């Protein structure tokens, strides 16, 4: 497996706050990777580090197995396309913006026309070529910014919150575009999102980020608190875990590992809570429940289980999960 990135012991502080703390992270080449996390989790910071627009205070980054110490050279810069959450287009037409990328990358002028045409076609923005950049809608702006980032055919495309502030039509267009670039063009696409389901839907791999830390656990049931003697105290509830990492301040519990029952279960599971059902949401193939046990737990069950348990809003239910289901980070 070729590694697009390998990050080791990355630390980055922002205004005296540790914004990123990543002991190790590998991003394989040719995959579509979603970076998930809440607002302020450090997604944009990590993407800027991957785009070499921010330099970490500590740590090592390799780009396609090459250790990067100093600012990127031309060949390395040409491997990365970056689209900001709020892309900035320079004054002028869409075409002049895209051409600027080719000029800055030092590509021969005779190639410009064909490359621009390809990028516009791929992003379905051919009709916008002569439009002034300040006359574009939000969705058009994002697609044009992607056209500008892919026009020099980078191996990696980094997109910061590409779906934010877009209507459903433009979200669908962008999803198709991202999938096209990742699957058909075989590029490494890394995008951030705070919508977990959307991230899971179109990505091959997921990186979860909480308070600048990466975690293997899905970003549901993430609680903040302190860990002492295998007991994690959120301030409202105490959760048993197998970890003894006293420096850790977060836990996450995979919603698929939580057993829902009408009565408390007699079992080996160390964690058992009773709470009130406050949300029932129907997803494509499963049902997502939220139970208030002092902290809100998200639980995923099948539609059949929903019927069997005869659940309704406000009903008291019991949650149980093993201490091994608790990821500490």
């Amino acid at each position: 497996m070729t590694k697009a990135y390998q990050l080791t012991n990355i630390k980055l502080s922002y205004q005296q706050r540790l914004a990123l703390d990543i002991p190790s992270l590998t991003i394989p080449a040719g995959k579509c990777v979603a970076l998930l996390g809440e607002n302020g989790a450090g997604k944009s910071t990590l993407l800027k580090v991957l785009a070499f627009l921010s330099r970490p205070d500590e740590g090592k980054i390799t780009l396609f197995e090459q250790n990067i110490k100093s600012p990127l050279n031309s060949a390395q810069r040409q491997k990365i396309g970056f689209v900001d959450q709020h892309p900035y287009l320079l004054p002028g037409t869409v075409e002049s913006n895209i051409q600027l990328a080719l000029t800055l990358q030092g590509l021969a002028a005779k190639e410009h026309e064909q490359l621009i045409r390809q990028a516009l076609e791929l992003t379905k923005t051919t009709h916008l070529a002569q439009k002034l950049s300040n006359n574009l809608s939000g969705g058009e702006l994002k697609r044009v910014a992607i056209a500008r980032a892919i026009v020099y055919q980078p191996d990696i495309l980094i997109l910061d919150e590409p779906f934010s502030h877009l209507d459903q039509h433009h979200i669908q267009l962008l999803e198709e575009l991202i999938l096209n670039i990742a699957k058909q063009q075989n590029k490494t696409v890394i995008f951030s999102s705070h919508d977990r389901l959307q991230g899971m839907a179109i990505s091959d791999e997921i990186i979860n980020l909480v308070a600048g830390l990466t975690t293997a656990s899905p970003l549901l049931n993430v609680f903040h608190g302190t860990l002492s003697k295998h007991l994690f105290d959120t301030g409202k509830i105490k959760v048993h875990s197998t970890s003894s990492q006293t420096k850790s301040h977060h836990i996450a519990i995979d919603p698929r590992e939580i057993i829902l029952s009408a009565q408390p279960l007699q079992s080996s599971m160390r964690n058992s809570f009773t709470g009130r059902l406050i949300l029932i949401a129907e997803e494509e193939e499963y049902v997502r429940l939220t139970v208030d046990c002092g902290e809100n737990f998200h639980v995923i069950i099948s539609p059949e289980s929903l019927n069997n348990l005869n659940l309704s809003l406000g009903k008291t239910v019991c949650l149980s999960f093993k201490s091994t289901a608790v990821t500490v980070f």
Partner: protein
Amino acid sequence: MNYFIDSLSAAIELIFSFDPDIYQIVFTSVLISITAAIIAASLAIPAGVTMALNQFHGKAFIQHILNTLMAMPTVVIGLLLYGLFSRLGPLGHWGLLYTPTAIIIAEAILIFPIMMNLSITAVNSADPRLVPTLISLGAKPTSLIINVIRTTRLAMLAALVTGFGRAIGEVGAAMMLGGNIEGFTRTMTTAIALETSKGDFELGLALGLLLLIIAFALNFILSWLYSSHD
């Protein structure tokens, strides 16, 4: 009051009589100021952009020096350059004293800190996404500076016009280094000072009016450029 009104009407007559002596002075003034503004801009704008784009030790100190130089009296620049260009000075053999070149150098030095400061302000006021966008698209240090200048060109043009306005209105250094030689180094400001002291108030007033017209025209052009850009 009659004296002022009579002088004003005589000055307007002088302007519309298209007296070649008056327009020779205007031409000399404009030529010297434009040359000084272009030379200063070609150095100050890249320097200002480079300074704004980079973080380094001593940046705040340089900013303080620039602010101090902006307030430097023009006669002090004239005095220092007089010392350098006078026959006994270290650059006396260049024979620059009492030439338009000496005035151009003085005015370029005078307006350099103004233009550099305005360039720094222009970059700092630009969209904060501009520089990261250009870097992500592959801009190297030189192309980054060029594209930042291109994107902030209106603010840079304002810096150029402000510098030109300061240069054309300058009198102290132009008098000391130019010597107010008729047809050679006589500028509008030095002529106003000289002619008024000689009692030719009408000529001074005519040149003063022309200076105001030039300043007005420059500001008008700048406003028009801003409005057409919006």
